[in-house]
């Protein structure tokens, strides 16, 4: 018996806590992943609240610079690896088998393993941060999320080593998850569902999984090399013995750039579902979107050095990376075009998921367009490592990634719980998020254009006004998210019954099931025409 059939053979879940610890059921694991992502979203948010509180006024009020560095580094690592990626993985766990008519993921036990690595990785990352309050060690890593400075001199102590082990663990977790997705999507589809009929969300995740498989080992290897450099006397990144500190940047950005798309692709995959549902139209430009996603996947691997245009690359490399990066705008605009096509001449209604999807398009559009400016090397010399960059990637990561995840959450929440959420509160949450998000990040453009570097705990007086507004916006944005908790908890507890279809225009196999779907689904595969 294989794992797949073995899992199905367990008819009933364990009771209580054992159910969640031992589960190999894709729906249970999906919920675990998503809950973990949600919790980490608030942990990472809390950290950035402290950072923004420090930046409210010029001068050092609350934090020492070392503490400040730790807080923004942990914020970034937690948000990317702890919140957005696990949440997207949770969605794929829950939805891919339902969307392709499979009984479960192909490797359910591996799936369980992949999830249970995550809490330990998170603990490992955070341990040094808390230990310092008890006088042990010098705190967590404070090098920025990609650790792109040479770590040999910048920070001794255990923080970076713990971060390295965290990265290695996350690598294992992501890779098992990715392999699982690839195998499931390629091998477990219901009869009749050819690849070109696979829902776009599954396509996006299949491509994401391939990106993970290609990029994550490089990141793990870079982390291992860093570890051996720090403790075992190798000299990969140590200039003293022929190593090259810039090599570390190359390796890390070789992963780091695809990582940006790993965060965004799942959202790009689910946006067409939502737009189509609430426009009551079929998906627009399905093939074009699949090809665009593939093209972005390919391009993301050949443009990494645009993150290091100020590190002194040769002229030829600068020109190449500039033009290659600009090429990404073409497949990305194909996606935007298809999103426009999805709502054009539809019959739209504006429930919360639709609002978030449209908010995604508007904010991601801003992030993407400014991304068109940044590769221009001359302009990049000005924008690189300034607050312009901070604003830019928050428009893509928050305006893209998180808005997408929230759209997905609202869209499938009635399917997961069987209850409708409070629509009024959902809309309130959306508008408050949009307003406070823009109050937070628009001023950062101007601070950056005016010459404010990022990663600074303190700033010159000319940046005061912008930072004050930005901090106030950030506090609002943080508070607003508490509303999301309230909405989700209330929806889980009860509320009006959701139908199987949930939304009037919803299509797809997952909406042929009752809400919530039974513990085991599609044990006999459905026939797809």
């Amino acid at each position, binding site marked *: 018996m294989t794992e797949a059939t073995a899992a199905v053979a367990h008819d009933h879940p364990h009771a209580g806590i054992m159910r969640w610890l031992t589960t190999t059921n894709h729906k249970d694991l999906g919920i675990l992943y998503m809950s973990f992502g949600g919790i980490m979203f608030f942990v990472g948010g809390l950290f950035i609240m402290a950072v923004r509180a420090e930046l409210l006024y010029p001068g050092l009020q609350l934090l020492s610079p070392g503490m400040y560095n730790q807080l923004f580094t942990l914020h970034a690592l937690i948000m990317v690896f702890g919140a957005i990626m696990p949440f997207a993985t949770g969605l794929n766990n829950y939805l891919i088998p339902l969307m392709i008519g499979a009984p479960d993921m192909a490797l359910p036990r591996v799936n369980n393993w992949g999830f249970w690595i995550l809490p330990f990785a998170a603990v490992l990352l955070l341990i040094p941060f808390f230990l310092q309050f008890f006088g042990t060690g010098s705190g967590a890593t404070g090098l920025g999320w990609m650790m792109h400075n040479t770590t040999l001199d910048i920070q001794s102590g255990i923080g970076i080593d713990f971060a390295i082990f965290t990265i290695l663990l996350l690598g294992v977790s992501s890779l098992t998850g990715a392999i699982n997705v690839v195998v499931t999507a390629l091998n477990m589809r219901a009869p009749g569902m050819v690849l070109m009929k696979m829902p776009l969300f599954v396509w996006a995740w299949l491509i994401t999984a391939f990106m993970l498989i290609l990029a994550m080992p490089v990141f793990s290897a870079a982390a291992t090399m860093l570890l051996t450099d720090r403790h075992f006397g190798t000299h990969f990144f140590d200039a003293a013995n022929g190593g090259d500190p810039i090599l570390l940047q190359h390796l890390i950005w070789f992963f780091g750039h695809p990582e940006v798309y790993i965060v965004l692709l799942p959202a790009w995959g689910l946006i067409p579902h939502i737009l189509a549902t609430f426009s009551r139209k079929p998906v627009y430009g399905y093939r074009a979107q699949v090809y665009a996603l593939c093209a972005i996947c390919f391009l993301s691997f050949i443009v990494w050095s645009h993150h290091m245009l100020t590190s002194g690359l040769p002229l030829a490399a600068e020109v190449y990376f500039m033009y290659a990066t600009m090429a990404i705008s073409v497949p990305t605009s194909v996606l935007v075009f298809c999103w426009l096509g999805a709502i054009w001449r539809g*019959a739209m209604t504006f429930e919360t998921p639709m609002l978030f999807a449209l908010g995604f398009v508007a904010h991601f559009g801003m992030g993407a367009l400014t991304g068109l400016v940044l590769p221009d090397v001359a302009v990049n010399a000005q924008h690189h490592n300034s607050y312009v960059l901070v604003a830019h990637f928050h428009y893509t990561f928050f305006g893209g990634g998180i808005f997408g995840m929230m759209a997905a959450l609202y869209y499938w929440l009635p399917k997961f719980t069987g209850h409708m959420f409070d629509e009024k509160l959902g809309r309130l949450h959306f508008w408050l998020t949009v307003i406070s998000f823009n109050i937070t990040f628009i001023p950062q453009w101007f601070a950056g254009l005016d010459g404010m570097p990022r*990663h600074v705990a303190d700033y010159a007086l000319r940046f005061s006004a912008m930072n004050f*507004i930005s901090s106030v916006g950030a506090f609002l944005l943080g508070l607003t998210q508490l509303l999301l908790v309230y909405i989700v908890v209330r929806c889980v507890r009860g509320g009006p019954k959701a139908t199987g279809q949930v939304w009037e225009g919803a299509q797809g196999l997952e909406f042929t099931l009752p809400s919530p779907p039974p513990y085991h689904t599609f044990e006999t595969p459905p026939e797809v025409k």
Partner: protein
Amino acid sequence: MELAGASIHDDPAIRVWRLPFSFCSRHETANFHIRQIKKQLPLWFWIAFFLFVSEPAHAKSIWDFQEPVTPVARTSLAASVEFMRIIMGIYIAVFAVFAYSIFKHRKSSGAQPGTFTGPGSRRQWILAITPFLLLIYIDYIWMGIPAFHAISRMEDTRTAADMTVKVTASQWKWQYEYPDEGISFVSAMATSQGQIHGREAKGEHYLLEVDNPLILPTNKKVRILLISTDVIHSWWVPSFGVKRDAVPGYLREMWVNIEKPGIYRGQCAQLCGDGHSFMPIVVEAVAEPQFNEWVAQKKAQSSQAEAVAGKAWSREELMAKGDEVYKVVCSACHQADGKGLPGAFPALSGSSIVNGPMLDKEGHLFKDGHLDRVMNGKPGTAMQAFKNSLSDAEIAAVVTYERNSFGNRMGDMVQPAQVKALR
């Protein structure tokens, strides 16, 4: 010569960071900030007004950098403004269509959903392809060609430079060197810890002021060589439009040609540890005659210092001078009474290093001895190599002073000439 001012190392609060939450914000400083912000608020409203209301003709004032004073900065500002206009244009065009669709194609206004899944007619295909052709045109021709010229100008090696300046970055200061003139000095932040921690009012150039600015002549092509001696730093003056990393062990270069005299301020732009925010760059651009005057003056100073170092100093002279230097350079960490700060900065009083040997019989520097520490610093700590920033006489004086103060009674002294020989 001016002495290095208090730097980030001097601040006990930064070292004692097991207590990160020091609630030292004072009311009067908070009021001060609010006044500052009120003063700047109209600017913000103004910008918001232009961003959302005005036509692109005003766009230049929105997307302004700090005043560009080099050809490269002017080029990149122009490119940035034009590019920003283009993307705002694209954004407005695309989202106008979105907005139209959102208002027209709603269920509540009785719209009937279409069933199409892609462009149908030839007209629709043309409509679908055009934006992409336009985008490619923008990417590779409209902005792409000027961008190429801008880069080749930025990396220009065709024209020879008029002079060279070498910048050596270290945590958290810059050392500037004019190899052809034989001038070298260290430039560190001059803002006081009191201002940073809200005990004093913040000055106009808070965090953007240094003890020794880099002096450059205007209208000269200056090649700037960059290197680091610890981690990666990045040298950035927004008005110059150039930014480049200083990498340990690897030489990098860029160039500036400043067209307008003035004082230009920038900061380190690569996260480089705790003092990253406190590593400002100040460049004073002056006309060539003034620059030559400054060089002559610097040279006179150093030959004067050399002459002073050449003579034999009496103990009294050394002690008096040492007291002076100690107050400015050392007392912030090691304290006025030489007792240091337990757990953060070691005491000099009764220290085994201060009370240990500094020179051996042949006159060689005792490795890790007192004089070696003062001259070459201790890696990985706040104790920096003062031979880069202090003169022979100053080092000799302060070392002699430390060995014969705070209850230390070594009784010996060191002459500037000896220090000179040990550099």
